């Protein structure tokens, strides 16, 4: 990390000796101006950072939330109810293979360019992968565990809620952690194409103006945001599933 900072300083210093007005590798003072630009209110009395964070954050939150709920539910139903498994397994497996960024156009057509579009895109983008993860984790459970639950007086429903659910939960949280990366990719890509506010929109705009002193801090913030989300999920996993150890089968 430190090496990266020092390296950057050196590269940008060299660049500015050649061309003092360079903005592709901004110096730290230029960077400061960039940060000031998106923290201070602009002519419209709007702070970019606030506007963009709210827009992107809301899209991501609702998209992820919807995707997580539906992905888990569909996966559980596929794993526990045989007719649903037969019905959903082929289409879900196929959908999981469609590249979401390529499917962007489809979402624009169906959902326009508003909030719904972003939410639908993120949700549909992660549902197949999450559902398949849950489904496979259920199929992976030794049948002995389920049979034993019946001998202990469980109903079908209780086997699903008391055994399958608890066993699958940590693997599902792992899957959500993995899905956050792609979800952010879809979102930023969509914002770059059709957004009028948000991280993706800002980055594309400022990049066109070669205002890299805005672009770089935005990238760092995005990385930081993803990292924070991941950390929260890991924390949640440790809280909800203290028994879970990834190394042991």
């Amino acid at each position: 990390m430190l090496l990266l900072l020092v390296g950057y300083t050196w590269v940008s210093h060299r660049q500015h000796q050649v061309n003092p007005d360079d903005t592709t590798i901004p110096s730290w003072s230029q960077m400061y101006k960039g940060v000031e630009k998106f923290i201070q209110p602009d002519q419209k009395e709007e702070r970019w950072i606030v506007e963009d964070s709210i827009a992107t954050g809301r899209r991501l939150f609702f998209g992820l939330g919807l995707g997580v709920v539906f992905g888990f539910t569909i996966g559980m139903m596929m794993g526990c109810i045989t007719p649903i498994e037969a019905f959903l397994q082929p289409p879900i497996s196929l959908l999981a293979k469609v590249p979401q960024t390529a499917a962007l156009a489809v979402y624009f057509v169906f959902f326009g360019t508003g909030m719904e579009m972003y939410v639908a895109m993120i949700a549909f983008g992660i549902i197949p992968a999450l559902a398949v993860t849950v489904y496979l984790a259920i199929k992976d459970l030794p049948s002995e565990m389920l049979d034993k639950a019946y001998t202990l007086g469980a109903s079908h429903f209780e086997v699903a809620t008391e055994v399958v659910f608890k066993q699958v939960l940590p693997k599902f949280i792992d899957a959500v952690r993995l899905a956050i990366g792609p979800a952010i990719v879809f979102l930023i890509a969509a914002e770059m194409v059709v957004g009028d506010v948000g991280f993706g929109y800002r980055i594309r705009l400022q990049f066109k103006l070669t205002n890299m002193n805005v672009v770089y801090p935005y990238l760092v913030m995005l990385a930081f945001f993803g990292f924070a989300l991941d950390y929260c999920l890991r924390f949640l996993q440790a809280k909800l599933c203290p028994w879970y150890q990834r190394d042991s089968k």
Partner: protein
Amino acid sequence: MTAVEQHNFGLHCREVSHWFGDNKVLFDLNLKVDAGQFVALVGPSGCGKSTLLRAILGTDLPQEGEILTLQNGRLANADRPGRDRGIVYQKYSLYPFLTALDNVALGLKLDQTTTMFRWFNWSGWAKKQKEFRDRAAVFLDKVGLGQAMHLYPSQMSGGMQQRVAIAQALIMEPEIILLDEPFGALDEATREELQEMLLQFYEENKEAMAEGKKPPYTLIIVTHELNEAIRVGDRLVGLSQYWDWKVDGHQRSPGATVVYDKPAPVFRSDERPDYEMFADIRHEIRQVVYNPEVLQQRDEHVNLSPTR
């Protein structure tokens, strides 16, 4: 079924036959287990002991014959796993996401409360949960795990895990408990401790019977160790495909059946048997059950007279 019969009833396998395609595994197997019996089931590897247990459990139904247990006070077919039969596996014996205490309390919870109750009657459930955990704690104390109640299975040794697994099944007091080589993966010393533990439960059976009550624990334990069978079981049952099936007019072996069924010596839990004394039992079983060269009438060593 009269009340007296109910009082003694454990399990009845009638004319059970099972095969997988061309592979004839079980043939015309009859086995009646009384409440309170500890049946040690032995037999050559691959003769179908696990298959029989799965049939009794109801996960792998026999092709022919019927298996009856007491379900809600009535004789019924064991055609799917149910609360009247308990199971202890060698692997997958515990739920990894529950502590020892909650593993043992799980059956009480599933059997005695409903999802609706747990989800919507929080205070009622909290009270029940405490009651179940207290009972589970007493039980864990009994199997010598008073100190380890809050450990997860991954934090316990194999021997501790099997103790918890046995407690988990026994606390339910089902009509019959099936144990498929429960100590197969344990070292000799741990095995012996666990045998002693099982014998403690056998003593509880005897106490209950002395008071005229139905004995709470009935079990079938599959083992490869003849000494273990002799020590833990009060009845030795040998399953084998080596019997004289030609006299019955079969062209090829129709499968394994019960070829040996005799009472076994009974020991106190604190008593270490002198295995030297049982050389003749072992010899007989080796000949009758394990030796492919010795083919006898299948009922020659089946002593169906009452064991007590």
